Structure formats: structure tokens, C-alpha cells
């Protein structure tokens, strides 16, 4: 056995000391400063409107907007990589447009889109009325009319705005993922008689997911935070807006912000655990077997999440 004197790291001890002092200061601030009003924070966290806002605007909004963003994004990525120049061009224009518009602005516009169809939005075959008119007759192929002002409000408009915007980013992420797969994979699939669509679904996309999942996790976390913009639609059934409302009613604005921070931290921790799971699933076969440390981390993380839920 080697019994050597290990290398000393005095810098580490200095860093530990500095951080310990800073942490002590922070804890002191949190505990002694009356402005935090922890009792009020605790109450604000679980108020019924806050919980409803959390479930509808914040969580459901995130899930639906990401579902729309990811599925549309993958379609856009496939279009962008297509041999068909019209499809590729259309996908490029889409990304160009929606990446340029700030989400706050987009959501505000979404809430006012109803103004385009004051007489209601007709669903049917387009231009039938105009063509019939030009031919000297009259015809209508509208099956149903919806109230556009009602349609473009609330959760629908919010999810539509956030999802359309997200698709522009997801398209780039999915494109990078698809391009990361060795072209030999598609050739091998083709050589087995698989068509391009089947090869994409069964062979290319599952491998692309390994590259797509980590940035998509980031996007989901960003989306969770961006649901706080939903008030621009306006959608009031959202966690941050409800907490702010409590703050302005009770003049305890600072504690409700702390409550919002706590909720965002909790949900983010859960999302990170889900992301870690997905990464392991799509990493199978790539020599990313979970190491004992990963296993231990996962147990701790899930333990935390489960404790929080109870």
C-alpha cells in the first residue's frame, strides 16, 4: 500500500470559509428579517386561487404549449430538411417570423386576434363565396361559425401563442438532432425496405431524441417561467398573477413574490428529475449505463420530489 501525503489544497479551505460566511449571512437574513413574513408566505402558497392558477395557467399551460411546440417543431424540422424547396422555404419563413416576435408581444396580439373576425370565424371551404360571387351567383360553404372574440381569449390564445413561438425554437433543436444521426442509419433502414417516413419514425428520430431531449428540458423550464406572461392575453388563472393579486390586496407584496419563487423552485426540481429519466431512456444502447453515483443521485432527487408532493 502507498501511504503518501496527499496534495494540500489551501484554496479550497479559503473558498469553504468564504461560502460558509455568506451562507450564514443569508440564513440570518431569511430568519431575522421581518419583511419575509414566513407565516404569510405559507398561507399565500396554498390559497385556492393560487393553486387553481398553478394547475391551469402555469402547469397545464406549460404542458399544452410544449406539446404544441414540440410536435409542430418536429414537423417543421422535417420540412426544413425535405428535398421539397417549397416545404423547406415555408419552414424557414415560419422560424424567421416567430423567432422575431417577443412572447409578451405575441401573447398580447393573440388576445386581440378576435378583431379580425368581428362577425365570427367561419369554418368551411375557403374562397367559395368569392368565387361564386365572381361567377355571378352566390354560394356558401361555411359549416360552422365560432365567436372569434371568445376563441382568442384565455388559455386557448395563451397556449396558441406560447406553442407557436416555441415551435420555432424546437424546429432548430429537432433539426440539429436529426442531423446528428449517422446517414448510414437511414441507408440501413432503406436497405431493409423501410420507406423514408418509417425510417424517420423508427430509426432516425429515436436516435435524434438523445440530442433533442436535453435542450428540450431547458425549453420546458423556460416555458414554465414564461407562463407568467399569460396575463398579457389576458389570462388571470395563473399562479404568479394570483399571488400578485393577493399582494396588492393585502399590501404584502414581498412575501407573495417569495411564495412564487418557492413554487417555481419546486416545479423546476420535479422537471429536472423527469428530464434525467428521459435522458436515460433515450441514451440506451449508447454506453450510458447508469453508474452507481447516477443511481444514488436519482434516488435522492426522486426522494426529494416525493417528499415535496406529500
Amino acid at each position: 500500500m502507498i501511504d503518501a501525503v496527499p496534495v494540500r489544497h489551501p484554496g479550497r479551505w479559503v473558498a469553504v470559509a468564504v461560502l460558509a460566511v455568506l451562507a450564514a449571512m443569508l440564513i440570518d437574513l431569511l430568519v431575522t428579517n421581518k419583511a419575509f413574513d414566513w407565516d404569510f408566505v405559507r398561507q399565500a402558497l396554498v390559497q385556492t386561487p393560487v393553486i387553481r392558477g398553478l394547475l391551469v395557467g402555469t402547469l397545464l399551460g406549460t404542458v399544452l404549449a410544449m406539446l404544441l411546440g414540440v410536435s409542430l417543431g418536429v414537423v417543421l424540422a422535417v420540412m426544413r430538411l425535405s428535398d421539397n424547396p417549397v416545404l423547406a422555404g415555408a419552414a424557414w419563413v415560419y422560424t424567421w417570423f416567430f423567432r422575431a416576435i417577443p412572447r409578451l408581444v405575441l401573447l398580447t396580439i393573440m388576445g386581440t386576434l378576435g378583431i379580425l373576425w368581428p362577425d365570427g370565424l367561419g369554418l368551411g371551404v375557403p374562397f367559395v363565396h368569392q368565387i361564386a360571387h365572381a361567377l355571378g351567383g352566390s354560394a356558401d360553404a361555411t359549416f360552422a361559425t365560432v365567436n372569434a372574440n371568445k376563441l382568442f381569449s384565455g388559455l386557448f390564445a395563451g397556449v396558441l401563442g406560447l406553442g407557436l413561438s416555441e415551435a420555432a425554437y424546437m424546429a432548430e433543436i429537432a433539426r440539429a438532432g436529426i442531423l446528428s444521426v449517422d446517414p448510414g442509419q437511414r441507408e440501413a433502414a432503406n436497405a431493409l425496405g423501410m420507406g423514408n417516413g418509417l425510417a424517420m419514425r423508427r430509426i432516425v428520430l429515436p436516435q435524434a431524441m438523445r440530442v433533442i431531449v436535453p435542450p428540450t428540458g431547458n425549453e420546458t423550464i423556460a416555458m414554465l417561467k414564461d407562463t407568467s406572461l399569460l396575463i398579457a392575453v389576458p389570462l388571470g388563472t395563473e399562479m404568479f398573477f394570483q399571488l400578485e393579486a393577493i399582494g396588492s390586496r393585502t399590501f404584502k407584496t414581498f412575501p407573495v413574490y417569495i411564495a412564487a419563487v418557492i413554487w417555481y423552485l419546486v416545479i423546476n426540481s420535479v422537471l429536472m428529475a423527469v428530464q434525467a429519466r428521459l435522458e436515460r431512456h433515450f441514451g440506451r444502447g449508447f454506453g450510458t449505463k447508469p453508474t452507481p453515483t447516477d443511481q444514488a443521485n436519482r434516488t435522492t432527487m426522486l426522494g426529494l420530489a416525493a417528499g415535496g408532493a406529500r
Partner: protein
Amino acid sequence: MTGQPLVRALNVHKAFHGNVVLKGIDLDVAAGEVVCLLGPSGSGKTTFLRCINQLETIEGGRIWVDGELAGYEEMDGRLHRLHDKRIAAQRREIGMVFQRFNLFPHMTALGNVMEAQVTVKGKSKAEARTRGLELLNRVGLGDRCDHYPSQLSGGQQQRVAIARALAMDPKLMLFDEPTSALDPELVGEVLAVMRELAQAGMTMIVVTHEMGFAREVADRVVFMDAGVVVEQGPPLEVINNPQHERTKTFLSRIRQENDEYAAALEERAEAEKL
């Protein structure tokens, strides 16, 4: 239709961005025949092989597989390009083994062999599994079916790739330098599987640098250089008594490399003995 060749290539031309790779290849391969394509790198043999499977589109000439024109349909004296679906159906009859294996890394060995049986041939999972296990056993990997490609050696991966191609019950097997990416000690196990396949009567076209395999297994060797077929015939005639200068140069260089390699191996063996 006896006497009709399984593969007939007529005056096949192919260029990549103006760089002509195939300059009129004519080749017939009979059912059950094993043909080895030899030639220096850049001679176009791999490209020709990929043309048979339509992984490359040809610019001139025709290729028929089992009497069916590859990639086109002749109607009213004009060629019409086939729809992707029809091309996929044509490829189903042809198995292909790649130099770099190209196994699907996100599936186990058995998953690789089952995939196209289920998604292309529409077999049930149970049927595909039975056939998959049978084929993995045939290539000597029955005990490795739950391994992912990254957990297999190169030789094992290539044998899985052969099983995967066989699972489609192809009429023709194409091998594109199947042993070139392998460590020398793993070449033998792949060649053994191919030899067994040839003895079982499979029609095979093999691009290879393995002269021993060509001599022993091939019914015919075809020597290509600079996009044309230089000479062809029974392996012993072409390899032992080449007629063309280009064939002689190529074969002597291969022989020299093999000798040097054998000498190096011997040296190492002796060094290890000491």
C-alpha cells in the same frame, strides 16, 4: 424463367458532381452465384453495389433484379421514375451488409433483427422473435440477443447485421467490404458466416479485399478499375493468371501487403515467445 440472370446490369453509368465513377458496367449474376468484386479503392465497385440496391441513382444504363427494372417503369417507350414506396418494395428483395455495420444502436441485437420483419413485412412480434432467434443462432450469436450493438465486438456486430438482412428473406445479398472495418482477428468469424451462406445457395455479390475468401468461395471474380470491368472469370484463373496489366499490378500489390502482414504477425509471435 430458367436461364434469366437474377441481376443484369447494362451499360451502367454514374457520376458524382461531374466526376464519372462508373463508365458503362455490364454484369450478369445468375441465381445462386457468388461473385466477388475486386479492384483498387476508387475503382467504383462499392458505388456499383449501391446502385444495385438503389442507394445511388444511376445516370445511364439499366439494372434489372429478378427480371424487374430497378427504380423505373417503362411505359409508352419512356422511363417513369418509380414512387418511393415501390423502390422500398424492390429493396426488400435485396439484403445489404455495410462496411461500418450500421446496426441500429438504440435496439438490442434481437431488436435489430426483428425491426423490419415487423414494420415492413407486417409479421407479428412473436413470429419475428422466433425467426430472429433462429437467425442469431445461425450466425452463432444466440446468447447475445439482448446485447446492444455497443456491447458487441465488431465481428459480432457484423454477424448481427447479416442476420438482420437475412430476416427479410432476400433473394440477393450484397456485401460492401464487410470485413474492412474489423480487427484482423475478427475477420474469420464473419467470413465463416458468409461461406456458410454461400454453401446454402444464396446469391451473393461481395466487394472485398479478402483474396483467400474470393479464391475459395466465389464462383466468379470480377476485377474493376477506374469505373470499368477489366476482366472476370473463375477465381483461380483471374487471381493466379491475370491477363491484364492493371489486374496484375493490383494483385501483386495485395499479395505484397498480405506477405508483409504475415511477416509482421510472425515476428510478433516470435517476439512473444521470447
